[in-house]
């Protein structure tokens, strides 16, 4: 269909108008929607929504364009120009099929149109829904400008932090680098931590590198035992180095800057290198009888250590002869470990050829394994118990019939004081031929014998063995599995093994109840009269001194003490009178002025014989009760009590740190509860208390009275 150019121009104007009207509101509204989406949705939705908005806009424009077709353009032209006399449609189509009247009319309106310009097109009013939706969008956008509730809460502390840091009321640790280099023998790789606390092998080298904000003038590490370590400033921050030999707590003290934001005690745990553990697989008992026709004695040891096992030596002692004619020959040989297995766990096998050792009837062959680890300086040494192979004097006679009945008693093997003196003298004689370390080792061995003897005599004074506290570096160490010399000594110690599953573990008292008996009743040990006790005490003191010098490799200095100890022991042996103490009998001195006068007036024992026992650990329960009641009490005093060297608790460092935390923040509930938890774990068991029963009321009293008056049936 052909259109008159005039009509075509009109249609173009109409279309532009329509699109302009649309462009007034649609892009703005779509942009508002996209903005709303971008407030709440993730980025990909925003991109999608932009695309969608453009698509919608294009669609709306195309629709507006298409809506203005020829018919609607003619209708609008007719409506707007009355002079066209509703004949604008004549401008459309070809002239061929028109009637003459139509042609005439067309000419007329064309002439009118050429006289008058095309009418102006009014701007279309905005659709009504635009206003409504626009208002909603404005409200939504306004609402979306407020921060969300959770955003607001999240942002608060962050805002506070950012606000505080620059104000610099507190110094903040910006970065921490703690380089840990374990001793070379452990084979542990060096590592770095980014925290101030660590568990490291004993003897490790620690290097701190700390950066502060703001930078202080001087920094030092203050350890809980009072030592201080100053940090020096370098390019990478403040640094210092030290070698850790014991578990400790420390605090960072800054000067020339505000206090640290997190000013607390940091903990360094030193993991102690333990001595190797020896497990004797064969022989399975300490005293083995030689079997008929036995040629060899198989030995099998398993040794474990935490970092690696060093040398292993087998000490072989052959005791020959009987009665007074015992000759002892000693030798030692290095053992080679079985192939395979890592350095931490080794097995040693040895078949002793009895013939080549000169083992004969009536002899005892005693072996013990001595293992060292690689610790430097001062390797840990572990010794197994002595294992004895005995060739009985008359094997055939003794093992008849009653073999199962005869209880073979294991004697306690320890050297006499006289033997120690002989050994010491021999060692002094050989001084010139011996290398230093060999001399030192032999002197130390005699020192161990001296210690065993001292402990043996100490029992008579009611002393307990030196056990319990594990000293990892001392050679005569006790082991869990392997029986030791101490166990052998305590064979007469009949520890009852009443396995009691009901008692909890980790309780000192319960362990004692399960495996032993107490020796801490001073009265129970008074088997000797005071004079003998005094002599014996003096003998022990001499032995202490002898042991001291022997352990230091000075046998010559030890000799006089050994001799004096021998003299004193002889005196004790000669004193025949031994008294049994009667309970609590401590008679006061006789008052001569009253003697035989019969005057008893005013004689009273006001103090009493028994006094209440003092308990060192009472301070723990007192502190616990004060803290549990909600007050703080004297934490200062408790803290200094904890730091005292005499305090031996399972986790003293942890307790000190917990006390310190509470002292710094007295109103911190979790610190208080943490301290209470730790205190609870070390609370002593108090003596059991009694309670009075409730007083009966009037009717109860009357009931009891009536009961008493009732005649017995």
């Amino acid at each position: 269909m052909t259109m008159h150019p005039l009509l075509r121009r009109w249609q173009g104007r109409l279309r532009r108008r329509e699109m302009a009207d649309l462009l007034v509101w649609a892009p703005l509204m779509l942009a508002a929607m996209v903005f709303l989406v971008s407030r709440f949705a993730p980025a990909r939705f925003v991109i999608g929504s932009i695309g969608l908005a453009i698509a919608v806009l294009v669609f709306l424009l195309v629709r507006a364009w298409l809506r203005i077709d020829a018919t609607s353009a003619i209708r609008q032209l007719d409506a707007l120009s009355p002079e066209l006399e509703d004949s604008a449609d004549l401008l459309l189509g070809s002239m061929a099929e028109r009637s003459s009247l139509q042609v005439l009319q067309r000419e007329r309106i064309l002439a009118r149109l050429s006289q008058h310009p095309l009418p102006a097109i009014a701007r279309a009013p905005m659709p009504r829904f635009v206003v409504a939706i626009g208002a909603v969008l404005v409200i939504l956008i306004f609402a979306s400008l407020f921060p969300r509730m959770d955003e607001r809460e999240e942002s608060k502390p962050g805002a506070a932090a950012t606000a505080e840091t620059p104000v610099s009321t507190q110094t903040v640790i910006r970065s921490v680098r703690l380089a840990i280099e374990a001793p070379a023998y452990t084979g542990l790789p060096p590592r770095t931590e980014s925290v101030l606390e660590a568990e490291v092998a004993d003897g490790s080298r620690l290097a701190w590198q700390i950066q502060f904000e703001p930078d202080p003038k001087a920094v030092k590490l203050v350890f809980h035992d009072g030592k201080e370590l100053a940090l020096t400033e370098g390019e990478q921050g403040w640094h210092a180095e030290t070698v850790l030999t014991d578990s400790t707590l420390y605090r960072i003290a800054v000067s020339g800057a505000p206090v640290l934001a997190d000013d607390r005690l940091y903990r360094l745990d030193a993991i102690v290198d333990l001595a190797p553990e020896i497990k004797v697989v064969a022989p399975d008992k300490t005293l083995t009888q030689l079997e008929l026709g036995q040629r060899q004695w198989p030995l099998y040891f398993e040794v474990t250590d935490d970092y690696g096992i060093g040398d292993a030596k087998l000490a072989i002692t052959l005791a020959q002869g009987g009665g007074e004619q015992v000759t002892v020959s000693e030798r030692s040989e290095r053992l080679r470990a079985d192939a395979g297995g890592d350095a931490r766990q080794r097995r040693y096998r040895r078949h002793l050829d009895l013939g080549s050792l000169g083992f004969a009837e009536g002899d005892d062959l005693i072996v013990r394994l001595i293992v060292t680890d690689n610790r430097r300086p001062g390797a840990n040494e572990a010794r197994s118990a002595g294992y004895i192979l005995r060739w009985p004097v008359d094997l055939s006679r003794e093992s008849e019939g009653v073999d199962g009945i005869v209880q073979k008693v294991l004697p306690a093997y320890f050297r006499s004081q006289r033997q120690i003196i002989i050994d010491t003298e021999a060692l002094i004689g050989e001084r010139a031929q011996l290398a230093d370390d060999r001399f030192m080792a032999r002197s130390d061995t005699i020192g161990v014998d001296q210690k065993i003897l001292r402990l043996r005599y100490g029992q008579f004074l009611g002393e307990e063995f030196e056990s319990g506290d594990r000293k990892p570096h001392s050679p005569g160490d006790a082991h869990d599995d392997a029986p030791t010399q101490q166990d052998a000594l305590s064979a007469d110690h009949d520890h009852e093994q009443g396995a009691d599953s009901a008692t909890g573990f980790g309780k000192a008292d319960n362990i004692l109840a399960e495996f032993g008996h107490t020796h801490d009743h001073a009265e129970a040990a008074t088997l000797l009269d005071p004079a003998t006790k005094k002599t014996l005490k003096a003998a022990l003191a001499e032995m202490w001194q002898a042991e001291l010098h022997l352990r230091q490799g000075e046998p010559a200095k030890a000799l006089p003490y050994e001799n004096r100890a021998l003299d004193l022991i002889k005196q004790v042996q000669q004193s025949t009178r031994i008294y049994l103490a009667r309970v609590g009998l401590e008679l006061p001195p006789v008052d001569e002025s009253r003697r035989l006068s019969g005057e008893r007036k005013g004689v009273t024992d006001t103090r009493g014989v028994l006094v209440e026992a003092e308990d060192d650990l009472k301070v723990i329960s007192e502190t616990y009760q004060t803290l549990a009641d909600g007050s703080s009490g004297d934490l200062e005093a408790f803290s200094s009590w904890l730091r005292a060297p005499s305090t031996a608790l399972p986790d003293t460092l942890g307790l000190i740190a917990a006390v310190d935390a509470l002292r710094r923040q007295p109103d911190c509930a979790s610190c208080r509860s943490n301290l209470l938890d730790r205190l609870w774990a070390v609370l002593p068991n108090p003596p059991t208390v009694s309670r009075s029963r409730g007083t009966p009321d009037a009717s109860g009293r009357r009931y009891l009275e009536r009961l008493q008056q009732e005649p017995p049936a």
Partner: protein
Amino acid sequence: MSALQWATIGLLVLASLVGIWRALRLRRARGVVDVVGPPLMAILLWLVLYPPMIEKAQVEAVVLTPGVTDQQLAQLDSSSPIVALPGVIAADRSIERAPDLATALRRHPAFGSLRVLGDGLPERDRDSVDQRGLSFEPGTESRGVIELESPAVVRAGSLWTMQGKVAGVEGGQVRLLDRSGGVAAHAAIEESGRFRLFAAARTPGEAVYRLQVLDAAEAVIEELPLGVVIAAGDSLNTMILAGAADAETKYLRRWIIDSGSTLASRISLSRGIEQRQHDAELSAASLEKTDLLVTDERGWAGLSESGKALIRDAVEHGMGLLLRVGGSLSSKTRSEWAELGFHIESTDLARSSRLLSAGADIELTRMPLLISGEASVPLLTATDGSVLARWRAFGQGRIALWLPLDTWRMSTRGDKARYGTLWSNTFSILARARGATQPLLPRAPRVGQRAAICGIGADAFIEDGQAQRHRLLIDSEAGNCAAWWPAQAGWQQLVDADRRVPIFVLAAGEAAALMRQEIRAATRQLVRPPSVAAVHRAEMPRWPLFLAWLLASAGLWWWQRSRRSEP
């Protein structure tokens, strides 16, 4: 009758009068029906509106309670009415739900006997059962602790025992964890599900333990808190009169002093030589101050007649007396002690006996004597059932006869706590009553559940963990009791005058198996057969009455229409 009913009657009477008047006036042909009809209609309408009460047989209702199994739900008979109490999870929406049993019974007067499925009726519903018959079918088996018996108050330093029963755990164990996370006690669960734990009480205060039930794979099945008050001791004034020094006296004296009691003692050593601690003279004044006197047969024999009379008198006035038998008794001592209420016979019992004390089997030596005495109670019993010690009330005081000779071995063996527990029990029973009477506290109170506290003063109140006070409404008529609904779990203090008594409250969801078991046990108590002729009065159904009214009024209408069209 209500005003509404009167109004209805008025309207009905008026309507029937109008009906009669219209029938008589408008129509010529009158009949009896015209007069009788309207009142009859009115009466029938009245019956439709207010049906008469008739007697009806009651039905058995099924009450679903929490813990009902799916199987039980599937087997429900649809013919009997079903009501679900709160907490029942049932997919079937058609089951009626009731906030409590009383509401359900009010809604349905036809409910006669009840058939309770599930865990049973909680405390609030038990009273509403009233005299109804009740049968109970428990639902799902519980898993965890279903019985627990533990002391609320233990003496500091003593070994305390708790026991209980676990259901649904095969070959597991129970552990008691203290506040530091350490294991205070542990025990294997027996085949019957029972367990016993022994723990040592330490420093006085309020302790919270956690009881863990572990299965065979050591996985935690249940964990529940356990509040124990560790009580500090009272200082008792004790006096020991010993005829000779022996180990028992030595360790007893040591324990008495360590436990914070005061001790006066006199131990005869030889003729004219005594070992004394403080002033142990017998006088009325000194005995009045003494809470407990311990003596042995030699000490007793060494007393003068006046001394014995003084002791007797003091016991009547409240003192405790412990008579230890350490050797053979003279006939004089026997007769004197018989006067105190103990008859002693020599028997051929073994001197060695065994005693079970806090899980340990202890060997004790005892005198081979048989003590009897009316109104006396065993104080210590050996495992073979023979009595090692007895006590009886004598006047206001108490007397005990004690046969064991070597309890001190426990102390030397390192079992100080066990030794102390044995003697502190004995001393606490025998010593003079001086302590304050304790209020009667609820057992294991729970958040949101009613707990009763008895024996408290008029202005007692509860102080919760945040030091907030909660008033108690105390009923002095009912033994000074008050009901209390705890709102918080944990320790709360009952403050009565100047006395503070801690109470441990369980949270609502804790120890669920234990609570279910309690509810079941309480519901079982309510089980009773339904009464045979259970009837209730109910309204007659309306539909026959309505039908009658409809028929009658239709008939009357037809009658009157037919009459009108006749002329």
